[in-house]
């Protein structure tokens, strides 16, 4: 998707290991978001950022942490992965005049 790159696209990891997903944007948008998508639940907000080093929790933040040291990068870390965190993770960006206009292609994470 134009403006956002998510990496990796796919990952399989073992229960209890730490995992970091990366979102990189080229749009210079202030806001960045991490969502997870699960069947029957739609997209649920994990964490978001409203500027460098400014982050806040979403509705499903337990077990996740985030960091944003540069405008263009937003990292999502699973401190100790669990099977319930098997999901597809999407990054999104937003600006005042273009709210939530771009989502990444997603990272499919499987925790075994």
């Amino acid at each position, binding site marked *: 998707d134009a403006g956002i790159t998510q990496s990796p696209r796919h990952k399989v990891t073992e229960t209890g290991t730490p995992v970091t997903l990366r979102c990189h944007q080229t749009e210079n948008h202030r806001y960045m978001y991490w969502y997870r998508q699960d069947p029957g639940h*739609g*997209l649920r907000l994990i964490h978001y950022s409203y500027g460098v080093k400014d982050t806040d929790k979403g509705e499903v933040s337990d077990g996740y942490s985030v960091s944003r040291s540069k405008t263009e990068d937003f990292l999502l870390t699973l401190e100790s992965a669990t099977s319930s965190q098997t999901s597809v993770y999407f990054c999104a960006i937003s600006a005042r005049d273009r*709210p*939530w206009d771009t*989502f990444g292609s997603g990272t499919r994470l499987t925790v075994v």
Partner: protein
Amino acid sequence: QQQVKQSPQSLIVQKGGISIINCAYENTAFDYFPWYQQFPGKGPALLIAIRPDVSEKKEGRFTISFNKSAKQFSLHIMDSQPGDSATYFCAASRSGSEKLVFGKGTKLTVNP
């Protein structure tokens, strides 16, 4: 508490028909209502969005109808095509909030 309720969960229409997806919201402070289209293996793509100052917005074959008093909004896809087969999500947000709330999605299948 589900803030945005979307129906139906799945929808099958014939080519050339009209596809209608409905959403209802509870928070009267919501003032931004986007619709997203998602193909398998891809991230959601912003399709069309509306604000409560208008009752209808049309872009090509896609129309959003908005009923503020009923707290409902709907997506109409005219002359539905097989290429429209995808999952559609409605969402809602309010000014000043960094959070976008999603419906659970509708899987649309357009038969040739």
